[in-house]
């Protein structure tokens, strides 16, 4: 596990599947007495779709860290995140995050905003693992919002 901790940031990057319960357990113990009434994790599990054996990920840590840092200064919400690189098999988890808020309603809001922003902007690339091959998941990939200047 490589851990990028910049001003109290909690971003964890794992080679292979995220050890979901270990991480959640640690996060829960760390934050349960800080006055947050709601902890809402999101657990992204690799589905057995299209006959894949798993997924694989590349990520670009310098920009991932910068992207994540933007979510670290909310006045009323804390967010932690873990993501895999390399191979993650069916049934394993490649993406885990959790939002911590005083009340539930802002938690729902921030979780959705965060995950949608993650999907649109995190510099991560996904591949299907199928019959021993690593195939870019081009059908699920979306150009970054700032793309297109090389047209």
């Amino acid at each position: 596990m490589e851990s990028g901790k910049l001003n109290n940031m909690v971003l964890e990057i794992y080679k292979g599947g995220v050890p979901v319960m270990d991480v959640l357990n640690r996060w829960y113990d760390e934050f349960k007495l800080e006055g947050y009434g709601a902890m809402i994790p999101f657990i992204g599990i690799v589905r057995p779709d299209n006959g894949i054996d798993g997924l694989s990920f590349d990520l670009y840590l310098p920009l991932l860290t910068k992207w994540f840092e933007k979510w670290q200064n909310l006045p009323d919400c804390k967010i932690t995140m873990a993501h895999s690189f390399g191979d993650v098999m069916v049934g394993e988890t490649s993406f885990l995050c959790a939002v911590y808020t005083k009340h539930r309603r802002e938690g729902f809001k921030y979780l959705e905003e965060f995950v949608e922003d993650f999907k649109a902007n995190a510099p991560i690339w996904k591949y299907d693992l199928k019959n021993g091959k690593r195939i870019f998941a081009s059908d699920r990939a979306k150009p970054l919002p700032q793309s297109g200047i090389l047209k």
Partner: protein
Amino acid sequence: MVSVEFLGPIQIDKKEFDVKSVRELKDELYKIPELEDWLISCAIAVNDKIIESLDTPLKDGDKVVLLPPVCGG
């Protein structure tokens, strides 16, 4: 020289170019056949900051990365 790295699924090794702006770099990149399909959908970061203009100047030692379409999670 400016170093250029191709991220994710773009299967091209890091290269160096003698260019003064992203516009000049663009012309060089279009000379690489394997890149053709990727260029229109890539975002560009200079020294790990995503840029939005072709007129962004480049200087010796700058580090450019090309970011193809993403899909985390």
